[in-house]
């Protein structure tokens, strides 16, 4: 045990080297820069939109419309002069949208005839705030139409609230999860669950990829630097050597993933005030539906993740033994990366429970898949699938660890190589 701790410290020190620290710091700086730029753009997009309005009608109704736009969260900059001149003049400003209220606007409205309000969008690049222009036009038209239709209805039916005529059907929405039911918006519930868990697959992918990469590299570097032979002749069991490498890689992988995640969150997390108020309102609904996660669920999820990491590390250890040097190690990690990407993309874009049986079996045969779907399985009561996944990963880890221990206990740790040209394993 004394020697194991001693070896483990050496492995961790070898992994946390200058290159790793520099790459992590650089990554944090890059994420921080991306975050600042993105947040500025987001703020611009969320802020009250400034629009230019050219009122060629100058009627009471057109002024009321401008007032309605103002009330609907637009900042109005009124323009004067000829339309063509105003269009040209605005090219020189940072305004993104011009609304032209034609002359005769009030007259046409009074005669219940459709009116054409022209909008001019100024595209000055590709950015989040730029892409918002079409949304602004849509919101503007909705506000204008709403305003005008209210005017019509008030004239014709002065005693009735226009909103009641325009939306005579009210909706009471109910959500069902298994035998539980609650009143609320399914879109809001799904949106909240997604917002709470969208980082989870990224964390899982990073931890698994990092850890496996590190253990493959650690073993390959021992071979490349000709230190493995010496290490294998010191008085410590071969299993302890393999375990020290796996544990060190797992710990450093976790640390790197945590730092990456922090950077990622820094760059891509958006203002959460509104989101939290929505979540706060939905909390009782989520609880009623059993869609909340308690300590026991977190513990079970942790167990699933731990077993998946052990699966990845045990596969990576064997791949590391096959690698002759650092370069080969990099190539050998590629199949593992693909295996992690499969459940990652499926968890983002598909529902494992609705997939065909053969596809489902293929995905679940990948041991890293199970933690990707564990949270969803627990929340939606697919506990049988969760437990089966856990047992599968446990058996997989046991078999792989026995295999790894056997390889390390024999000549194969030195003689096993993957020969690319012959495309076969030479033992």
């Amino acid at each position, binding site marked *: 045990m004394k*020697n194991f701790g*001693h070896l483990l410290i*050496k492995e961790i*020190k*070898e992994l946390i*080297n200058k290159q790793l620290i520099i790459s992590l710091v650089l990554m944090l700086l890059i994420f921080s820069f991306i975050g600042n730029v993105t947040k500025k753009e987001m703020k611009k997009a969320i802020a009250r939109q400034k629009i230019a309005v050219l009122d060629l009608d100058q009627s009471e109704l057109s002024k009321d419309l401008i007032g309605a736009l103002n009330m609907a969260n637009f900042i109005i900059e009124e323009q004067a002069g000829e339309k063509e001149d105003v269009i040209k003049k605005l090219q020189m400003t940072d305004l993104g949208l011009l609304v032209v209220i034609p002359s005769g606007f009030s007259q046409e409205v009074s005669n219940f005839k459709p009116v054409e309000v022209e909008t001019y969008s100024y595209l000055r690049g590709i950015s989040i705030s730029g892409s918002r222009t079409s949304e602004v036009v849509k919101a503007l038209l909705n506000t204008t139409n709403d305003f005008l239709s209210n005017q019509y209805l008030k004239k014709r039916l002065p005693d009735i609230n226009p909103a009641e005529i325009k939306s005579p059907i009210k909706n009471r929405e109910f959500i069902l999860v298994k035998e539980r039911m609650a009143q609320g918006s399914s879109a809001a519930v799904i949106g909240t669950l997604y917002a709470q868990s969208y980082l989870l697959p990224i964390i899982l992918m990073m931890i698994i990829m990092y850890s496996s990469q590190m253990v493959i590299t650690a073993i390959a570097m021992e071979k490349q*630097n*000709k*230190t493995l*032979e*010496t290490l*294998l*002749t*010191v*008085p*410590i*069991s071969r299993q302890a050597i393999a375990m020290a490498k796996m544990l060190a890689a797992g710990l450093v992988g976790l640390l790197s993933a945590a730092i990456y995640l922090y950077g990622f969150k820094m760059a891509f997390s958006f203002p959460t005030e509104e989101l939290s108020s929505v979540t706060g309102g939905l909390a009782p609904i989520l609880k009623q539906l059993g869609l909340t996660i308690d300590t026991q669920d977190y513990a079970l999820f942790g167990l699933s993740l731990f077993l998946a990491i052990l699966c990845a590390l045990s596969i990576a250890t064997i791949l590391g033994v096959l690698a002759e040097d650092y370069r080969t190690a990099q190539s050998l990690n590629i199949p593992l990366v693909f295996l992690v990407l499969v459940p990652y993309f499926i968890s983002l874009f598909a529902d494992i429970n609705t997939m065909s049986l053969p596809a489902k079996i293929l995905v679940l045969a990948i041991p890293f898949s199970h933690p990707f779907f564990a949270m969803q399985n627990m929340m939606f009561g697919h506990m049988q699938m969760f437990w089966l996944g856990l047992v599968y990963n446990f058996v997989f880890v046991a078999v792989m660890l026995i295999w790894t221990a056997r390889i390390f206990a*024999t*000549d194969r740790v*030195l*003689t096993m190589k993957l020969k690319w040209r012959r495309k076969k394993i030479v033992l």
Partner: protein
Amino acid sequence: MTPVLEVESLKKNYGQLPALKGISFKVDQGEIFGLIGPNGAGKTTTLRIIATLLTPSDGRVSFLGFDLKKDPEKFREKISYLPEEAGAYRNMKGLDYLEFMARFYANNGVELKEYISRGEQISDLGARLKDKVGTYSKGMTRKLLLGRALMTKPALAILDEPTSGLDVINSLEVRETIKSFVKQGISVLLSSHNMLEVEFLSDRVALIDQGQILDAGSPQELKEKYQAPNLEIVFKSCVRSNS
């Protein structure tokens, strides 16, 4: 003399290829035993088996009464192996490397200090021990590794081509170090294709070719037997008479 190591009918096959065809020899306490032969003769395979890196296909190896197949852990506690193309951890300082390796063998702090101090003395790298191994020349790395191999005073030091890649001066220094350490009671099993080096170092030698020991004895005995001025000529005559 009591043999510390006994090798009997040792065989090793790599797939269909026989690397060792049943070799036998003994190493006595305080003795330097040299295996000499050309590249591919089976020297390194023999040393790797005794160092517990490879498992024999057949035969028996016993060391201080322990059987290699049954007690490889006991072997590792008492032996020290210097591979031909060994390296040290490039990101470690020389002194840290010695400490890292010494910790596997030391039972307490006093032993640890003693091992490190001996390692410093053997490697003879002075202030450069405080530099990272990655900055060392090949000769310096080899001296550090020799320090590592001998610092724990192993019952048997297994040295594969100990002066491999070293210049004349460094080779001489390494040979002197090995000689002086044997006087302290440790046994050495070494291999080299440099027969003059083995002649200078070894008390007894075994001539090995194509996985078989052709002859064994002290350098003087062999030279007299084959009426040759040095071991190179002995080896040539021996190969000719066996073919």
